[in-house]
């Protein structure tokens, strides 16, 4: 059954229902949950063992070789940093645009950002020849009088990613605080103390609400340039070097667009799964997918435009070194991957998203999955072919990943899912208070954010009727 915003308003007029439905997943843990965790855990463990083996034997157990010194690891790095643009950026934009349908979406998105960043940031370390001295990237005074080389894009990466990570964590935590408070009120036992700590003494006073609002507003504005800068700098890792088809001015916007593209896709996939497994059909209505789908469509078109622009200019410019790489991907051994990528990023998603009939939840979901795959391939096809065809033909080479790289890659996807599942267990994955506010707004049809504070229930009545709601609903998972 499809639901429209109006229906939501009517169905969810009762806070109890909201509380009940959204706290249920937090309250109880089914056998299925543990099975999933175990499965994902195994894969992650395999990944860590593979990394251990690599540390022990030397980076050579990976498939990288001369001249292709970067392979799966850096591909994953770029890919995951890209995914991380799902949340923060999108939710920030939507917040500022104050799109009503964003309310159930934002948190799912921001969570993706944080975890994707953590995973992505691991890869520069994993791919190092000597990870045990990775700390030399940190500027700290030492008797050698040596500092990091600030001219190196890798050092820029280091700072950019850390900034972004801190930023998006704050951006994630801030709006959770009231919900932590709610959990604190709802649960007893260890959970109460646990959420009590996380709630940072939230009482829901006017001042607190006001502070939260302003903080959120500032963060939303600040985080956007940060997010953009991050993937810009990642793209410069490549664009700054005189390598055929890397040394390109188009890379920064190209990468940012790609990042948002894959980010939205990842978000949609995540939401579909949440909706399905946590029975949040009412809370994640098709309108969200509808809108995100449109966004995805836009990015898909943008992506195709970038790819076309990039390749056309290289073909037309006809510089031997560049064209060699171009043909390697268009006609050479990489052609299959290339056309699969195009299919995944455009061929399949475009009809699914462009045709209204197909832009259903399943439709967008399928499209998103292909996009995620396609974007991973895109990163791979940016990195490997260029390196295997540099200027001196005598030094041309190839690249084959080994089981180590593949295991670690698989582990990161499992790791992402694992973290996500765990998070959903600990925190209401949909922002409860925002939903309530949104609902109240809808009912009073007062769209402006500023109005929210007026519309907000006072502490007394909140806690009052919530306790009521708690009493007369025994369906809430008992602590």
């Amino acid at each position, binding site marked *: 059954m499809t639901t429209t915003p109006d229906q939501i308003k009517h169905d969810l007029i009762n806070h109890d229902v909201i509380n009940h439905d959204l706290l249920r997943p937090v309250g109880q843990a089914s056998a299925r949950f543990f099975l999933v965790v175990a499965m994902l855990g195994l894969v992650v463990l395999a990944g860590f063992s593979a990394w251990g083996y690599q540390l022990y034997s030397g980076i050579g157990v990976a498939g990288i070789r001369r001249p292709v010194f970067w392979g799966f690891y850096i591909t994953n790095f770029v890919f995951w940093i890209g995914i991380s643009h799902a949340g923060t950026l999108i939710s920030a934009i939507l917040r500022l645009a104050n799109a009503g349908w964003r309310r159930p979406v934002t948190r799912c998105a921001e969570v993706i950002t944080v975890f994707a960043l953590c995973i992505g940031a691991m890869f520069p370390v994993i791919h190092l020849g000597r990870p045990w001295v990775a700390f030399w990237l940190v500027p700290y005074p030492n008797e050698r009088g040596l500092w990091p080389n600030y001219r190196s894009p890798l050092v820029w990466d280091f700072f950019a990613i850390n900034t972004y990570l801190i930023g998006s964590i704050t951006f994630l935590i801030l709006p959770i605080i009231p919900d932590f408070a709610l959990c604190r009120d709802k649960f007893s036992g260890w959970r109460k103390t646990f959420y009590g700590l996380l709630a940072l003494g939230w009482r829901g006073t006017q001042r607190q609400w006001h502070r939260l609002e302003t903080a959120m507003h500032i963060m939303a504005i600040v985080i956007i340039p940060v997010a953009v800068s991050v993937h810009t700098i990642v793209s410069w890792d490549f664009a700054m070097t005189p390598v055929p088809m890397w040394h390109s001015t188009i890379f920064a916007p190209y990468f940012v667009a790609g990042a948002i593209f894959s980010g939205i896709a990842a978000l949609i996939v995540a939401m579909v799964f949440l909706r399905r497994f946590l029975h949040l059909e009412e809370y994640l209505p098709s309108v969200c997918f509808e809108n995100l789908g449109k966004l995805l469509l836009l990015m898909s078109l943008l992506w195709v435009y970038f790819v076309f622009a990039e390749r056309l200019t290289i073909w037309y410019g006809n510089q031997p070194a560049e064209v060699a790489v171009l043909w390697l991907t268009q006609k050479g051994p990489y052609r299959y991957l290339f056309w699969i990528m195009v299919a995944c990023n455009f061929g399949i998603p475009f009809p699914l998203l462009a045709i209204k009939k197909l832009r259903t939840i399943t439709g967008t979901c399928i499209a998103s999955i292909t996009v995620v795959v396609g974007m991973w391939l895109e990163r791979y096809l940016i990195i490997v072919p260029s390196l295997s065809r540099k200027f001196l033909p*005598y030094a041309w080479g190839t690249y084959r990943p080994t089981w180590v790289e593949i295991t670690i890659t698989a582990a990161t996807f499992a790791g992402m899912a694992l973290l996500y599942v765990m998070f959903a267990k600990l925190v209401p994955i949909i922002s409860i208070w925002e939903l309530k506010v949104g609902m109240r707004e809808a009912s009073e049809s007062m769209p402006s954010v500023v109005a929210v504070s007026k519309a907000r229930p006072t502490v007394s009545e909140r806690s009052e009727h919530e306790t009521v709601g708690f009493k007369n609903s025994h369906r809430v998972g008992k602590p």
Partner: protein
Amino acid sequence: MAHRWGMAVDLDRCTGCEACVVACRAENNIPSVGEDQAQKGRAIHWIRVERYYEGEFPDVRVKFQPVLCQQCNNAPCEPVCPTYASYHTDEGLNGQVYNRCIGTRYCANACSYTVRFFNFFNPAWDKPLHLQLNPDVSLRQVGIMEKCTFCVQRIKSAEIRAKEEKRELRDGEPAPACVQSCPPRALVFGDLNDPESEVSRLARSRRGVKLLGELGTQPNVTYLQRNEWNDNNT
């Protein structure tokens, strides 16, 4: 006056005999990686003799072109290193500081000549082959990038010797192993800041070109192109 070390490679003299390749191995403790790794493209040769065919049978010709680190004045490998492991020395070399290298391999990707080599594993020598190792050159361990150093150890010891004897370095006094061994004298090494040195003269030659000069890396290595045989002195 500060030195600027440079090399001239006469492609007309080079015969592709690979004496330079082995000389370099012997001098610089370059490990033999074995067949499996060699197949994976992990063999290490700081200097290599590139071979390019021209034409088809029966009108075939081959061009041999020794390629080593070009010691660029405007080196792509230097700015990208996050830890200054790859940097420009006072004497115009691209220094590679092993102990500072964390193994990002960024420099190797940036290098347009693909002359940087990486230690994918710890090197190993079956005893007593290790007794040959040159104590003047440090052993590179796993995860470290390495490349031609113009035999900096030879340059340093020559400079120290000259200093003790209170004199200037003579032209061609410090000679990298490859230059020393080259039978047809295709490789010439010297100070480019000394306009009288043989290498500067050759660098000014009309046959002189820079490898991938269009990239603007400004190498300190000059290639003297082959002459075609012409019948004019009949």
